[in-house]
């Protein structure tokens, strides 16, 4: 089920809210679990068994690790949990990629498996692993209640597209939480903001991609327009989803960590990755990069560590070479910054640093968005005047004009300008009261706009669902 669907907004959510806030506290996790499973079932009925199985595996491994504490078996059970988790992920997500490459390399004709990528498997697998690894490290206590543990794994707000919530983050809230009125208000506002970002901005920007794909003739400007539009679209799509997840979590009394912090205002790629998909970056840092030795090793090992981490980051996003190239591209850039560019960047004017990050990001997202490696290089070639495409034509001008305002609006909203302006204005009591007074009306209006767009539009799944 999508957050941006009538099924979710007008049926699932109000029914859940009423039941959740009526039932006694001790049943709240059970209610969340049941509704989360329904939520998942609507999107992927068959793979619900995989979700339940993975959750039970995480739960049982947790109990086994805890029971064999201070014995060598604890490590065995930890390894077992990692093998099961990554094994399932590898089988469902990477089998066909592996088979395809074997066929290409060795000229074999192995038939690809008839499997579909289970929704959210990359996210919930990483959540389960965060639990078993942290439990082994004694950073969290064992969860003895299977309902509570399955609620954590399958919690619908972040089940399908993150953020990747470590068990540690909501360990206490799972046992004891309260939804205060102000939390509910803030959560609702956050959810609606995310919904608007997704439906009104990201999906509208996505139309530029459709125009590009259907264009009879592409031009250099159209290649750039497509790339810029996607760069903005993926930010509003994914950060919008994260806003909705964080907002829903807050309504139910959970505090998820932030997943985005205006990444496009970064002045270096290193900074960009501290602001983009924070939960994934933290996960890889905590569970892969640091265990490999991090940066407190010799240069050769450091290069190896970075390569492994960014290869894995690319591969996590998708079983295709363009994702791997995209990951390694960022790994190489981070290395370059750390070893060479840092001292120069510090002396470079901010405007050039921003331009550098934006350009790097646009090229990176072009590769990320491509259906294949060759398509990625073709689009980048088109942007760099390495194709036969004309510079501009009437169709490009039309699309540019048609989406000029939304592009501009998206570009401004991707920075904290509006937030800072609002904060500044709110220093004046009258403005603060004014904002508070019109907030309900604004959010209802936003809901109507979103509903109108959904009803008029087509099926627009979130981009990060495919991971």
């Amino acid at each position, binding site marked *: 089920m999508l957050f941006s669907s009538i099924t979710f907004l*007008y049926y699932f959510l109000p029914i859940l809210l009423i039941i959740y806030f009526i039932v006694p506290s001790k049943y709240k996790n059970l209610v969340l679990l049941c509704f989360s499973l329904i939520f998942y079932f609507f999107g992927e009925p068959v793979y619900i068994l995989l979700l339940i199985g993975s959750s039970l595996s995480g739960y049982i491994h947790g109990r086994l690790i805890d029971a064999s504490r201070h014995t060598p078996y604890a490590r065995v059970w930890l390894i077992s949990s990692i093998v099961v988790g990554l094994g399932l992920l590898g089988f469902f997500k990477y089998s066909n990629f592996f088979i395809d490459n074997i066929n290409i390399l060795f000229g074999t004709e192995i038939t690809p498996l008839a499997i579909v990528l289970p929704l959210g498997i990359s996210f919930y697998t990483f959540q389960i692993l965060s639990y078993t690894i942290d439990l082994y490290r004694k950073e969290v206590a064992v969860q003895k209640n299977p309902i509570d543990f399955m609620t954590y794994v399958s919690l619908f707000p972040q089940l399908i597209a993150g953020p990747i919530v470590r068990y540690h983050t909501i360990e206490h809230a799972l046992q004891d939480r309260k939804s205060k009125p102000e939390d509910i208000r803030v959560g609702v506002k956050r959810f609606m903001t995310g919904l608007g970002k997704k439906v009104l901005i990201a999906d509208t920007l996505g139309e530029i991609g459709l125009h590009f794909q259907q264009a009879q003739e592409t031009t250099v400007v159209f290649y750039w327009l497509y790339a810029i539009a996607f760069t903005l679209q993926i930010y509003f799509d994914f950060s919008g989803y994260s806003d909705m997840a964080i907002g829903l979590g807050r309504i139910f009394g959970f505090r998820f960590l932030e997943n985005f912090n205006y990444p496009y205002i970064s002045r270096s790629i290193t900074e960009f990755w501290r602001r983009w998909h924070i939960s994934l970056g933290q996960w890889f840092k905590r569970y892969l990069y640091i265990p490999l030795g991090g940066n407190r090793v010799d240069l050769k090992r450091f290069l190896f560590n970075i390569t492994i981490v960014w290869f894995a980051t690319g591969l996590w996003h998708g079983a295709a070479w363009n994702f791997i190239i995209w990951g390694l591209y960022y790994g190489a850039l981070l290395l370059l910054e750390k070893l060479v560019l840092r001292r120069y960047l510090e002396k470079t004017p901010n405007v050039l640093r921003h331009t550098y990050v934006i350009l790097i990001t646009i090229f990176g997202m072009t590769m990320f968005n491509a259906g294949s490696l060759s398509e990625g290089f073709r689009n980048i070639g088109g942007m760099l005047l390495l194709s036969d495409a004309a510079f501009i034509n009437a169709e490009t001008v039309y699309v540019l004009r048609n989406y000029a305002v939304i592009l501009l609006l998206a570009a401004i909203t991707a920075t904290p300008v509006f937030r800072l302006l609002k904060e500044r204005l709110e220093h004046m009591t009258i403005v603060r009261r004014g904002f508070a007074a019109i907030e*309900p009306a604004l959010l209802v209006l936003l809901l109507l*706009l979103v509903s109108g767009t959904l009803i*008029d539009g087509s099926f627009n799944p979130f981009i990060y669902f495919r991971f």
Partner: protein
Amino acid sequence: MKALLTPLLLLVVLLFGMTLSIVTPEKDISEYERRSLKSFPEPTIEKIFDSDYYQEIEAYLLDQFVGRQKLREINTLTRYYLFNQLDVNDTFVIDDILFQKNNPLDESSVKHAADLIQSYQQQYFSENDVYYGVLPDKNYFIPEDGYYPRKDYEELKDILEERLQGITNVPLSEQIDLDHFYRTDHHLDQSRLTGLETYLYDSLGVEVNPPNDYDTTCHSPFYGSYYGHAALPLEADTLCYVENGTIESAYVTRPGSEEQYPIYEESSLEGIDAYEVFLGGLDPIRHVHSPEAQTEKELIIFGDSFANSIVPLLLDGYETITMIDLRYASETAFETHVDVEDQDVMFLYSTMILNDAWALD
């Protein structure tokens, strides 16, 4: 508790939307969008475990949502006024007239159409008087200096002239203007075309006394095919058709059947596409018989839906008009059901069809 005002208000709106959508009787069709609306997909054990089933449910809920048309209008107005977009769903409005964004000129498509016409002419009509007429589509009248994309109509005309040498062109661009079109549809309003028949008779060398006047019957509201795409609070069109004694006595037959159908299929006025009132809509091949025609001449028209509203105007001049829609009629069907004698032959196509002519075969 003041903090709960916003959440409660939104919850009320959500519950209101849900409840009204549930209690409001299901609609079978959307007259605005001219399409059938989804009904609730019946569950089966097999379907319940198929994710497509839940997409069907979502499609059903979207279709049957209370206030669907008003919410679509909100979306369109947001797109136009907040995002300052030029079109919504590829549809745009200029002076309360709806247009749909067309593709740029597809030269290969026009050449394909021209070659097809040429091959029919050479194979079947070498002894006949053969004409072609191109009806400009609505976008022909969009100002050239705006952002809205416009086909290269001159190039289209040049391609046809170059490839259809030996076939007489009946220029129609000067006979049609924007006022001849429905505001919300791409078709021509027949009641505003009266007078065109005189021009056509002259061009085809038919000597008749065209009727001085027609009786006009109107149906309202007529939501044209662009109306649903536009989702704007615009006034609907009125669909009018003209009659006289000749038209009233005329009838339509279809190959393989003796059954006679009226020139105006009035039952279509209450259907999804009221434009199907003209000759009953689309058909591969049909014969229009006019017992009160002033001549014994016959005409074969290869055309599209635009021809449907023009043919009734020609019934004084032709005793029989055979209409062939090459999108649906194969060459074999043509050979089987059409006896070629000394009929006049006219290829009458809209530029819309010529630019997307791959279905013509």
